């Protein structure tokens, strides 16, 4: 799964790359070509003009004419070279300059002129035939391979004398210069970074909403802040409305449960009193058993509702005697409950809440595991209470969900009456009210281990 911001950055980078490539292409093809043509026209015109001038002047005046180029990028000299084949590098500029010369002075074209583009790093492997190869290479300056890009134009100005003009190849490949590429890279990188920063900012509220959605249980959650761009704000508002509807439904359900629990309490009291008048001992006992199961459900429900209201104050309580008493009472009622741990362990906690949590855990162990091994120990500043059974356990994927109110492990529905799916929710609420932790573990070879970690004294907040 890719993050939205990552995707946007990739998209921006791709678009940027494409547009840079396109503009480079047009700059190169159109712009460069135009400049090259202009350059060719310029050089062609000058060379033709100078050749005509030199031909009309006596040889003694040539040096002073040729000197007029001094101080410009061009150089001009008159040389004698033996006839031979002038090579070609095949560059477009050669053809453009030759065309320009032919256009201005048709008589100077063909064998009377030669154009050679010399490009740094270019291999000039064109064949040079004839006895005077070395002279021609010299004429073209090809012995000095480290020179800059240049174009050499030779024009015959009578006999074996040639006017040689060496001009720079202006702006031919400056597109690929290091500075240009560096600038391109820096602006691209800045654009991508800006895009990343903007999308991060845009998507942060989404991340908040997702986190809030994860935190919503049936017992509510925090609303998400309603800010950010319009769409995101709408999403946050819609999410908060949904959350409050959900909370409203849960509240409604809890009110209903409270009402039912209260009415059940009255009915159970009646039935218990009636049961005492039953003649048959066996019947009376089984009615009483059912009644205590029902009472257990009502108590659990009321305890859960009470726990949501909070309110029980923390006080100095001996945790070990509390756990022992619960174990002993449940053992006296017929459960296989064993306690292992200290006789005394002073702590600061809410005794009724803790007792309710311990009762629920032992109840579950007895219901699903047939027995409960309860142990209490100190680890650092915490009391660690463990309740183990050898029942079927809870599969890892359900371990978070079993703490949600009304959630019951599938098997539990059919296995036992007398549960409302609130037992572990109460445990979790109690534990978090104490700044503690609860976790479920596998127990070898089988069974479930519930570990409660409770601070011995309230933590400074």
């Amino acid at each position, binding site marked *: 799964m890719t993050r939205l911001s990552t995707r946007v950055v990739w998209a921006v980078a791709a678009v940027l790359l494409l547009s840079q490539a396109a503009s480079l292409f047009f700059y190169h093809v159109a712009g460069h070509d135009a400049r090259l043509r202009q350059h060719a026209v310029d050089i062609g015109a000058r060379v033709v003009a100078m050749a005509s001038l030199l031909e009309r002047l006596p040889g003694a005046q040539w040096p002073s004419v040729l000197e007029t180029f001094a101080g410009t990028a061009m150089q001009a000299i008159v040389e004698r070279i033996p006839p031979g084949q002038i090579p070609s590098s095949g560059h477009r500029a050669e053809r453009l300059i030759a065309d320009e010369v032919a256009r201005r002075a048709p008589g100077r074209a063909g064998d009377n002129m030669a154009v050679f583009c010399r490009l740094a790093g270019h291999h000039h492997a064109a064949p040079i035939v004839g006895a005077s190869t070395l002279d021609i290479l010299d004429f073209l300056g090809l012995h000095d391979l480290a020179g800059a890009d240049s174009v050499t134009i030779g024009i015959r100005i009578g006999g074996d004398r040639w006017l040689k003009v060496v001009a720079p190849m202006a702006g031919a490949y400056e597109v690929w210069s290091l500075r240009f590429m560096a600038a391109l890279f820096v602006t691209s990188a800045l654009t991508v970074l800006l895009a990343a920063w903007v999308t991060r900012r845009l998507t942060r509220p989404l991340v908040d909403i997702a986190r809030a959605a994860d935190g919503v249980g049936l017992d509510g959650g925090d609303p998400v802040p309603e800010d950010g761009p319009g769409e995101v704000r709408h999403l946050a508002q819609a999410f908060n409305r949904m959350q409050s509807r959900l909370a409203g439904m849960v509240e409604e359900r809890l009110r209903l449960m409270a009402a039912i629990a209260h009415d059940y309490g009255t009915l159970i009291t009646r*039935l218990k009193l009636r049961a005492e008048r039953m003649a048959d001992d066996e019947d009376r006992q089984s009615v009483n058993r059912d009644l205590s199961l029902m009472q257990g459900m009502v108590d659990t429900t009321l305890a859960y509702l009470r726990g949501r209201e909070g309110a029980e104050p923390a006080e100095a309580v001996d945790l070990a005697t509390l756990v*022992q008493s619960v174990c002993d009472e449940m053992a006296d009622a017929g459960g296989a409950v064993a306690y292992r741990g200290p006789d005394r362990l002073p702590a600061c906690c809410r005794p009724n809440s803790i007792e309710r949590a311990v009762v629920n855990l032992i109840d579950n162990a007895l219901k699903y595991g047939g027995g409960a091994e309860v142990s209490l120990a100190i680890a650092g500043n915490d009391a660690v209470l463990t309740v183990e059974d050898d029942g079927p356990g809870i599969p890892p994927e359900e371990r978070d969900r079993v703490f949600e109110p009304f959630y019951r492990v599938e098997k539990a529905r059919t296995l036992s009456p007398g549960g409302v799916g609130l037992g572990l929710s109460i445990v979790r609420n109690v534990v978090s009210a104490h700044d503690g932790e609860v976790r479920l573990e596998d127990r070898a070879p089988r069974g479930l281990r519930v570990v409660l970690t409770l601070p011995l004294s309230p933590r400074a907040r």
Partner: protein
Amino acid sequence: MPEVVEAGEGRTARIVVVDDDPDIRELVRRALVPEGFAVTTAGSGAELRAVLATGACDLIVLDVMLPGENGLEICRALRRTSSVPIIMLTVLAEEGDRVAGLDVGADDYLAKPFGTRELIARIRAVLRRAGGAAGPGAAVYRFAGWTLDTLRRRLTSPEGAMVRLTAGEYDLLVTLLEHPGQVLSRDRLAEMAKGRMAHLFDRSIDIQVGRLRRKIEPDPKEPTLIQTVRTGGYILSIPVEREG
């Protein structure tokens, strides 16, 4: 012919049962009459006041959860003019309800759903106390740094921590505290503890003593508070201070 329970002045004890549920009122009445009580019922605070206006009453069994004026308010109002013993019926036997009931002046409480034997035991205990007869009353005991408040059923350790006792341990401890320095046989302990409350001892006295020792003895293996007497029985061998 049922034994007639007498109030302090030698007449049949009159009980008013207040509950909004007519069936519960009737069931409680039917359970109490054979035990020798004269029972009147009321469905609300107004009905209760009407009943009280027509004659004297020795004890009120008052439900906390009443529509309109609830049990706590009725109890508080009654206490301004009367000291008639009151047993509150609470929905949950939780500390909060218990303390609330005791704070407004109730003498005892009983959690719903209750058994009639338990209710009768409580009524008798409260009547005994009210009649000034020898017997367990609301008291605070202090021994070896420990404090037991019988009104709130609360045992506090020398370190100040609330120590939770099972019902059986509590009854046993109260019985021992009522007879400090006396040797009490197992049978007598069982009888007295049973008489105090309707809790049946599911475990033998020895087991209860063992459990109580684990909670209150500095070293349960070498008990110094509750000592075993070789002839059979136990003795609380430390001074006990009693208030109330």
